């Protein structure tokens, strides 16, 4: 009986959380479409989420591109590797690794920061204060972060694409003595607009996930510093899992058609 009760509690908790998240997303979408719009807040968040995430995304993608080139070179046919390495690095980075790794890195940095900030505001009654001052917290806190993350992630993914390909190029030309001109020419001959576009669409969805999970977990945090810590961890874990799940679903949708 105790085991059944535990299972029952787990499912009740799961459905309650899912329902609460759905309501939160609904409130956020309503806030996104109705004025007032806090443009200055959106700008500030774009700076914090987009600009300040540039170094971490750039370094991640550069080294991933380089590592990918090494793996393909040693894993494939080394005598005809110039064409294979450049094309697989380009496709791998633009379709998958750029947006996914960029998304995961930004999830770690931004989702945690959003959850910690909003969670602290929750436990110190700043969100209640906003409400009593006739300001809708969904419009003032959540919407600017969601808009900023959704707009910035594709731009970060584009940077990741460029630097990831460049990482492969550096390794190919410096370590394996590939001809630079041929490498570039092969990269662009294989790469299609759809490859880049699909990655950017994915990145926009990941941006939405990152911001919404940070805001949701922070907004519902309780119990002082420990509660904020829990919210931060939950934000990063849930955003990362949802990014990977959404990536699978979108890949299936975009490339099976």
């Amino acid at each position, binding site marked *: 009986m105790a085991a059944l009760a535990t299972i029952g509690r787990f499912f009740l908790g799961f459905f309650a959380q899912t329902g609460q998240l759905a309501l939160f997303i609904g409130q956020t979408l309503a806030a996104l479409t109705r004025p007032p719009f806090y443009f200055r807040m959106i700008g500030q968040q774009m700076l914090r989420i987009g600009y300040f995430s540039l170094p971490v995304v750039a370094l991640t993608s550069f080294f991933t591109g380089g590592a990918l080139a090494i793996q393909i070179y040693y894993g494939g046919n080394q005598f005809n590797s110039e064409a294979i390495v450049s094309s697989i690095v380009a496709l791998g980075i633009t379709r998958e690794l750029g947006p996914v790794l960029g998304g995961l890195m930004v999830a770690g940095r931004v989702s945690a920061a959003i959850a910690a900030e909003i969670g602290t505001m929750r436990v110190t*009654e700043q969100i209640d*204060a906003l*409400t*009593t*001052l*006739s300001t809708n917290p969904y419009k003032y806190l959540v919407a600017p972060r969601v808009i900023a993350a959704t707009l910035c992630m594709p731009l970060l993914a584009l940077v990741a694409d460029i630097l990831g390909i460049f990482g492969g190029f550096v390794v190919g030309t410096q370590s394996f003595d590939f001809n630079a001109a041929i490498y570039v020419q092969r990269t662009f001959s294989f790469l299609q607009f759809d490859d880049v576009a699909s990655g950017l669409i994915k990145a926009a969805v990941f941006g939405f996930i990152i911001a919404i999970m940070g805001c949701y977990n922070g907004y519902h945090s309780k119990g002082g510093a420990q509660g904020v810590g829990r919210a931060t961890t939950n934000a990063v874990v849930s955003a990362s899992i949802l990014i990977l799940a959404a990536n699978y679903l979108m890949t299936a949708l975009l490339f099976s058609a």
Partner: protein
Amino acid sequence: MTQKISLAHVHKTFGTKQVLRGLTLDIEKGQSMVVIGGSGSGKSVMLKSILGLLTPDSGSIVIDGQETVGLAREKRTAIDAQIGMLFQNGALFDSLPVWKNVAFRGIQNEGMSEDEARQIGKQALRRVGLGDELLDLFPGALSGGMHKRVGLARAIASSPEIIFFDEPTTGLDPIMTDVINHLIEDCVQDLGATTLTITHDMTSVRAIADKTALLYKGEIIWHGDQAALDASEDPFLHQFIHGLAHGPIEVEGQQLEAALAGLDS
């Protein structure tokens, strides 16, 4: 006199815990009502229910003749506009300087210009005895007493008709407690506002209350003016205002008698 705020049979339950059990309370226009009660008696839940931050399970809360239970947030804008609130820890926005905190309502809702907002910030700070040098500081740089005073400045900046004070003197030294009590008294008199204060602090009660109510287990079990407070022989009130460990009030979360017996042995 006209009732500015009226609560009738308000119930609120969290899980299996009944926090408010048919709470009924009337606050007249221009009156300073202080609700006292121990930790866990339901004071904060009552206040959050009046502010619309929590929705009661049943009962009625009428502010200025308008029923607010079940009223959507966007439909209580007119009510919210006439309310000021001093939170227990100030609840100042960390990311904004003092002047933006104080003039927040004007900046966000009335499209106030920066110059105008700074002016409002200056005036409100002066009313609570703070100087202009604080305007550009962030809340993190303020002491506990200043935090409270800036919170009070924010609460009165828009000259509200109703002001709520959530434990305004908790955590302050006796001198700062007296300063805050006087500021509350002065501000309320200047504005002619109706106020509701929740506190444990009997010094505050004596300094600012026109009328006092004792909340115990989610119900008002005694209410009266200052003279009645001293004259009352109510055993619950007697125990609370004299801070006695023994009496009819049960301390939340423990069997007090057993705990004290354990200490004695």
